[in-house]
């Protein structure tokens, strides 16, 4: 068994199991905790509040005009690298074959050269994100191991992917093996750190929208 076989065979299987079990456990752990009973008389009805919660899952994606002046850099960086990641992960032909084989589906790909350009841009944005985290007083103060390691895991995946497409650094097969291994690492790390936000973002927004609208307050 060579590196690629190992990476996409047993290593991937183990990583995937950790990924699924970890995510399920993290969500179940939250759900198992005590649920607060809300007893104060609502100002808005339950359906209105529920609808607002649903709306909040989308409307929070764009900051209120009151705040945007102060947060525009963070927002712009955040949005751009997330879009870059989606393009590179989901619209690159080899990735479509790889992910498609699990779900038995295919979707159109972007030309490899275009995806490569996006990969370069995304890596550059990632460097900017790190520089900002290290340079911005608030972010520096807030940051912990999770912030840096999560950054590292995703950055490693991007860099090894780019090296594999550009055929640089080491024989293609070795780089491909490292690239898949870095994907395994991402799956393993996923439930333990902040990458979990992808699963939390909509429930927290929805809950906040519901709770605040129930009071008639802005959300």
């Amino acid at each position, binding site marked *: 068994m060579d590196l690629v076989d190992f990476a996409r065979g047993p290593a991937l299987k183990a990583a995937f199991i950790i990924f699924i079990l970890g995510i399920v456990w993290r969500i179940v752990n939250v759900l198992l*905790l005590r649920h*607060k009973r809300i007893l104060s008389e609502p100002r808005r009805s339950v359906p209105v509040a529920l609808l607002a919660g649903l709306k909040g899952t989308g409307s929070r994606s764009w900051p209120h005009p*009151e705040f945007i002046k102060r*947060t525009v850099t963070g927002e712009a960086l955040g949005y751009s690298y997330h879009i870059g990641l989606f393009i590179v992960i989901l619209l690159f032909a080899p990735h479509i074959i790889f992910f498609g084989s699990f779900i038995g589906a295919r979707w159109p790909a972007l030309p490899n050269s275009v995806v490569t350009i996006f990969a370069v841009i995304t890596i550059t944005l990632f460097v900017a994100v790190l520089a900002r985290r290290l340079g911005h007083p608030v972010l520096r103060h807030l940051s912990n191991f999770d912030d840096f390691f999560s950054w590292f895991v995703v950055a490693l995946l991007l860099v090894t992917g780019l090296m594999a497409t550009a055929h640089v650094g080491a024989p293609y097969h070795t780089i491909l093996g490292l690239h898949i291994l870095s994907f395994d690492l991402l799956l393993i790390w996923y439930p333990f750190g902040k990458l979990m*936000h992808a699963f939390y973002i909509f429930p*927290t927004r929805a809950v906040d929208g519901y709770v*605040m609208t129930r009071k008639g307050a802005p959300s």
Partner: protein
Amino acid sequence: MNTSPVDFQANLAPEEAKLGESARVAGAMRGFAREIGALSALRLDACVHCGMCADACHFYIVTEDPQYTPVLKVEPFKQVFKREAGAFAPVFRWFGLKAKITGAELARWQHLLYDSCNLCGRCSLMCPMGIDIAELIEQARRGMFEAGLAPKELYEKAAHQRRTGQPEPSDEPYRDKLLAIGRRFNVEIPLDKPRAEVLLTVPRTDIEHYPAAVAALVRVMAHLKADCTFRSDGLVAENYGYYAGGRDWQREISRRLIDQAVACQAKVLIVPECGHAYSALRWEAAELMGKSLPFKVLHITEYLAEALEAGRLRLRTAQVGATAFHDPCQLVRKGGITAAPRQLLRAMGIEPRETVRHIGYNICCGGGGGVFDIERAATLRHRVVEEKFHEIDQTGAQTFLTTCSDCRRTFDDGKKRFNWELTPGSLLELVAEHLQGG
């Protein structure tokens, strides 16, 4: 086990200072544990450390000091959650990834959780993840309280209010002061009626500093011919248990008012011009009591706006020039009262000049959440009120109103400090001065 009292650089009441390290840590654990639930866990777990909440908090905006980043203020709560109740709590414990909280560490957070937070909810509006950070801060205060680390001023006022019904000793009981206000302003104070539709409460800030606002409340209610009463055994609207973070004390202080409302079979309990009193009674009392309240809780502006809509209240035009209105954070951001004060202003022919950041997004006076009472927080609070003054000055208003006596007091204090030109006024007083036929 260390049980000796610890000399913290914290602002503690003598009773709190006596606590030993182990009692302090046990208290914190107990306090935080009571606050951990599905909702707080979701919120504590979801943060991505994007730092944007800092840009919403006026304490950060005016200082640019990263320690005032809202989500950082709940760090001890988060630490206890991760170590004790998080999904991977055993891993954090076995490998020592999250240290056990210590009293000294908690004490360092006193400044962040109390001196520099109004529990205003502006950060919660900003968070892209939808985390209600202000609620987490309120919960973290509860852990601090159990650890004997609530600021001296808040602890002592809460203790006094719990014991006596009023947050501090006074030369004469508030009941007598209330009657004296009635005599001074020539209004008849409805007091201790055995039955009444409406139970009135009063901010101690008004009793002590703004008696005209108390008279205005009485005058307006008399004008509406409301069947109402104050009750000697449940007068004070503020809840220092809420400020200090004492969950049980908050409940007991609320219970005093609830019992009076029940005793006189009130259908409505009116919270006068006090924002945090509204939060404590309107949105938290039922939860703390474990049952719904058998009456409505209304802020005075809501009550008057309803009367306006029903045609029971008619107001004359007020000649006050360009007017700006400050929305108290607890009424608007956390309470959902936006329209009522504006309806009242418009009924007096006033089109409020809105601040640049407005209706729910305005910054605070800086004194809410108990901050005004904390002596050592004064310098920081002044920086916030100065920023707020700039916000109001930009409207070009000649008259400035609000509907929370604590905001008003903070503004008055800031006015003295900065020689601000405007004089903060009470919306309720203006209404009382413009009653049609009154």
